[in-house]
């Protein structure tokens, strides 16, 4: 385990200052620690500055109102998935958070941490992009807002500087007739990392015609990918088999997965199409149930 200096500031201003003043050693922010502490354990040397964000009230709450959802990035997944109000409006986001690790992991791991860890297989990232979530980032020079699809820039990499903090995750209220869903494939039923994932949001009019869609694939490219061609395959259709098949084919075509023992390239390309189709059907069914 690396040697650390631990700080738990009470405000975001203090946290940003700790990070920007830290020029002589690496500095990392700590939310749930389910990725970070494992990484620090595998390292030696130090010291590194660890800035725990969980004493900052606005990192830990979630507000759902007529503007949509404003999520404190460090709220643990167990607290988020227990929020029936949020689950009703964004079921796909909540089901993605529910798939992260075990009960114990969900007791610590957060959506913001999942996002900032920026793993290609992160479950909440496709779900967030599907619902057009944005990242509100604070740094020494003020705040900026970045769509989630532009936030993650590579495997384990994102657009934040070392003295910036993800302050809120902002999600617009879905338009009337809109619902989302997230599916992932793992070789067992629990406790594994996505081989492929798909986050889908669809909007249907009163006649069941799709008027808008966002389709996002995960774990099949260096970052989660928004696939406009897959969404275009659904828009204008009544979500019939041909449209769903075309959306699946577009998702498979957009993927560029790795080949490893958990899935070959061909397998992942196929499965991501299947997941896309199934998630689209679930989202459409959710619209009809509303």
């Amino acid at each position, binding site marked *: 385990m*690396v040697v650390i200096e631990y700080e738990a500031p009470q405000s975001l201003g203090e946290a940003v200052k700790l990070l920007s003043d830290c020029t002589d050693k690496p500095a990392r922010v700590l939310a749930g620690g389910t990725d970070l502490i494992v990484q620090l354990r595998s390292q030696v040397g*130090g010291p590194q500055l660890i800035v725990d964000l969980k004493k900052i009230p606005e990192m830990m709450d979630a507000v759902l109102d007529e503007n949509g959802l404003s999520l404190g990035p460090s709220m643990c997944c167990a607290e988020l998935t227990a929020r029936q109000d949020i689950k009703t409006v964004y079921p796909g986001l909540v089901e993605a958070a529910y798939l992260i690790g075990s009960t114990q992991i969900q007791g610590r791991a957060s959506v913001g941490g999942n996002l900032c860890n920026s793993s290609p297989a992160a479950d909440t990232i496709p779900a967030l992009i599907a619902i057009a979530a944005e990242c509100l980032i604070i740094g020494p020079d003020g705040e900026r807002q970045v769509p989630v699809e532009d936030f993650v820039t590579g495997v384990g990499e994102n657009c934040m500087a070392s003295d910036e903090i993800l302050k809120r995750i902002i999600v617009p209220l879905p338009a009337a007739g809109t619902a989302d869903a997230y599916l992932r494939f793992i070789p067992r039923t629990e406790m594994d990392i996505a081989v492929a994932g798909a986050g889908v949001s669809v909007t249907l009019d009163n006649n069941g015609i799709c008027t808008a869609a966002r389709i996002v694939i995960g774990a099949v490219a260096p970052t989660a990918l928004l696939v406009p061609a897959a969404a275009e395959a659904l828009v204008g259709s009544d979500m019939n088999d041909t449209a769903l098949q075309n959306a699946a084919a577009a998702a498979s075509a957009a993927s560029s997965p790795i080949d490893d023992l958990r899935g070959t390239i061909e397998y992942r390309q196929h499965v991501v199409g299947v997941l896309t189709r199934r998630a689209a059907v679930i989202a459409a069914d959710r619209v009809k149930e509303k």
Partner: protein
Amino acid sequence: MAKTHVSTTINNEPVEFLCEPNQTLLDCLRNELQMTGTKEGCSTGDCGACSVTVNGRLVCSCLVFGVEAEGQNIGTIEGIGKAENLHVIQQKFLEHAALQCGICTPGLIVATEALLAENPDPTEAEARYYLAGNLCRCTGYDKIIRAVMDSAAEMRGTA
């Protein structure tokens, strides 16, 4: 570097300890406080042997820094029953032979208590999903699940 002083609550008793900032809560419990009921398995959050509660929420103590315990309320296996007065869950684990080597048992009992506090009447599937983060390499889980379901029934009956 100077050690950090931590004031916390463990099993409803005020507790103070000194630790290095990079010591995990698991390490602090076992090596600073000699509370060795909580076991170390994988140290990466995969096995659940080190399960404790923090403010009632089930977590792996290997993925919490000891310094994070400041001002929090920690629950460990030592707070669940005593050798001379076992908790219902502990009694049911014995009756159903739900343990062999015993390393996973404290974590499973802490997790089962958290499950039943949240959901006193779980289905078997709900219990299996809730406890999926507690690995046992001996029993094959069947006896554990029987003990959990029987504990739930007993605790509902006596509640």
